[in-house]
């Protein structure tokens, strides 16, 4: 173990790192100390690498690590990570039951008026944009129930199964001991289904504002319902939200989302965002074999052609592509927005997503979806 001074230094450095947002457990600090023992402490470069590979464990942490390291060695001030607060009025208005949003009741979406519908049914059909806070709270409970639906894929693992097709040889060999090698008792196994990867890319630009909160809550429930889900948000640029939505408490999760999405409720650049997704995440094969769900109204301000191109790229790698557009909930809706029109040829299923019932439909589609047919 290195001398006391070094221990002191590394422990302090660990604290600086934590302040900079890097998760550093006590075990890692101990590793760092053991490792420093093996290198030449007078070589700053070796100290840098040694600390980096013991204290940081994600590429995303490396930048924060470098800043902290510079601060520690050169006494440069640590600049705190940029934070953007959740637009207060939206959350406050919902939480406090402010009725100022009553004007939105006439927003897209039909108000079912048939007599005899239960309150439950009414709630399922009500447009998110026109819900009161109480209704919204109840809708949330419904969403959690349907969020567990997940597309399936065939695993390569085998399980004992009465209608299995692969002979369980291990069991057979053991059973044959009693019958002098005659394979009398034959058990079979078969491949079982497991969840397929699911990628959800959600538009949080200004034009989607009325639906964003509801859809993100739904997304939170989806992420919470099991592994294998990746969530992204975009307005003018793409942000990965999987870690934020992984927080257990929905309000905290939404706060965290708001903090990391810098362009909340601003403009839309669908094409550019999809491009980033394909370049950064598609390249790491997150798309391959996944069902990709895009939630957006398709309002591309810049370049519909780019939307088409990037959708084609996305669709080539994905198992299937689903587009959810809350505007589609309106009976008069037609996909005229340039981005939407460019995207549609590459979409397998085009759904609305403006109320609980439509999310149920989404869940059903996700469970039953097959590979996209090659054009």
């Amino acid at each position, binding site marked *: 173990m290195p001398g006391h001074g070094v221990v002191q230094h590394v422990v302090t450095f660990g604290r600086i790192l934590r302040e900079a947002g890097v998760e550093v457990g006590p075990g890692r600090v101990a590793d760092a100390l053991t490792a420093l023992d093996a290198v030449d402490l007078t070589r700053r470069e070796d100290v840098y690498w040694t600390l980096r590979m013991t204290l*940081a464990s994600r590429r995303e942490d490396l930048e924060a690590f470098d800043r902290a390291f510079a601060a520690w060695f050169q006494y440069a001030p640590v600049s705190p990570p940029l934070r953007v607060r959740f637009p207060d009025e939206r959350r406050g208005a919902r939480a406090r039951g402010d009725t100022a949003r009553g004007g939105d009741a006439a927003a897209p979406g039909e108000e079912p008026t048939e007599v005899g519908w239960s309150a439950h049914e009414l709630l399922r059909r009500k447009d998110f944009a026109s819900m009161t806070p109480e209704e919204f709270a109840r809708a949330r409970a419904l969403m959690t129930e349907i969020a567990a639906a997940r597309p399936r894929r065939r695993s*390569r693992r085998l399980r004992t199964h009465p209608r299995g097709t692969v002979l369980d040889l291990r069991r057979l060999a*053991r059973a044959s001991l009693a019958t002098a090698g005659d394979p009398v008792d034959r058990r079979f196994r078969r491949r079982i289904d497991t969840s397929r990867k699911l990628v959800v890319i959600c538009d949080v630009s200004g034009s989607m504002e009325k639906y964003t909160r509801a859809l993100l809550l739904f997304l939170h429930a989806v992420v919470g319902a099991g592994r294998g889900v990746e969530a992204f948000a975009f307005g003018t640029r793409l942000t990965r939200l999987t870690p934020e939505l992984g927080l257990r408490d929905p309000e905290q999760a939404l706060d965290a989302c708001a903090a990391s999405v810098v362009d909340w409720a601003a403009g839309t650049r669908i094409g550019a965002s999809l491009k980033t997704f394909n370049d950064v995440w598609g390249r*790491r094969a997150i798309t391959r074999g996944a069902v990709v769900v895009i939630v957006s109204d398709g309002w591309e301000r810049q370049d519909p052609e780019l939307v088409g191109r990037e959708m084609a790229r996305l669709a080539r790698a994905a198992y299937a592509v689903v587009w959810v557009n809350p505007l589609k909930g309106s009976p008069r809706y037609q996909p005229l927005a340039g981005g939407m029109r460019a995207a549609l040829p590459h979409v397998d299923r085009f759904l609305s997503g403006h109320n609980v019932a439509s999310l149920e439909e989404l869940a059903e589609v996700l469970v039953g979806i097959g590979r996209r047919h090659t054009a």
Partner: protein
Amino acid sequence: MTFASIEELEEALLGARYLPDRGLATALFLALRLEKPLLLEGEAGVGKTEAAKSLAAVLGARLIRLQCYEGLDVGHAVYEWNYSRQLLHIRAAQEGTLSEEELFGPEFLIRRPLLEAIQSDEPVVLLIDEIDRADDEFEAFLLEVLSDFQITIPEIGTVSARRRPAVILTSNRTRELHDALKRRCLFHWIGHPSLEREVEIVRMRVPGVPDRLAAQAAAFVRGLRRLDLAKPPGVAETIDWTQALAALGRPELDPEVVEWTLGSVLKYHEDFELVRDSALAELVEEARAVRLERAAGPAHASA
């Protein structure tokens, strides 16, 4: 074989025609010294797998490689019973004389990479390649193996490592690995090398290549990485390409030969078209203008 210092390991790797930067050398050195698995992440083609191979070479160790894929299971990663032999054995034995212990004994065991690595008497480098492709369940299992270096086979009992293998895991980050697994490992991110280092690597891997061609090829590929490509080329591509160029006997780059051979650098048709139609002439020009200070001996570390 043990190494007393990072420099010594660097020297040895250089002898094995592998040129790590100081960071990677430190990572490999510490992985050996602390007997901890090393997790290597980085873009495709930056030499993650190659690092493990070279480490095995300089240690005089056997490289055991486990290529991960979705659905990888114990039967393919750890061990499997040789059922046909077992059944034949039962047939051949006198009725009632064969015990279960005998039937599930070591001679009927097929050793897959993980068991092989743990049971080996000679030094071993265990390469667990593209761990992010295996599914969660397997990762959890691996975690157990990597913490105790032992494997339990129900019929035989627990097999412990006689000597700990050096373990290298690679990941292309198609998904985030479990924190618990990461906690067991040292972590190193391999970026693209500096121009000087890449030239060194190319000269080392393509013997007899004219210096000017090596420098220009490396500079050209570096230029490609600045472009907005679906799949930016890695060092592996630079090496392949330079080999192709050298085989054509050209002393330096020209637009014509670049267009002929670009297919060994750019693996996507869209990328190929983009470069051919817009950037090719400029990049060739730029690459031809590159002047390198000839680095003598092993290239120097860069942070």
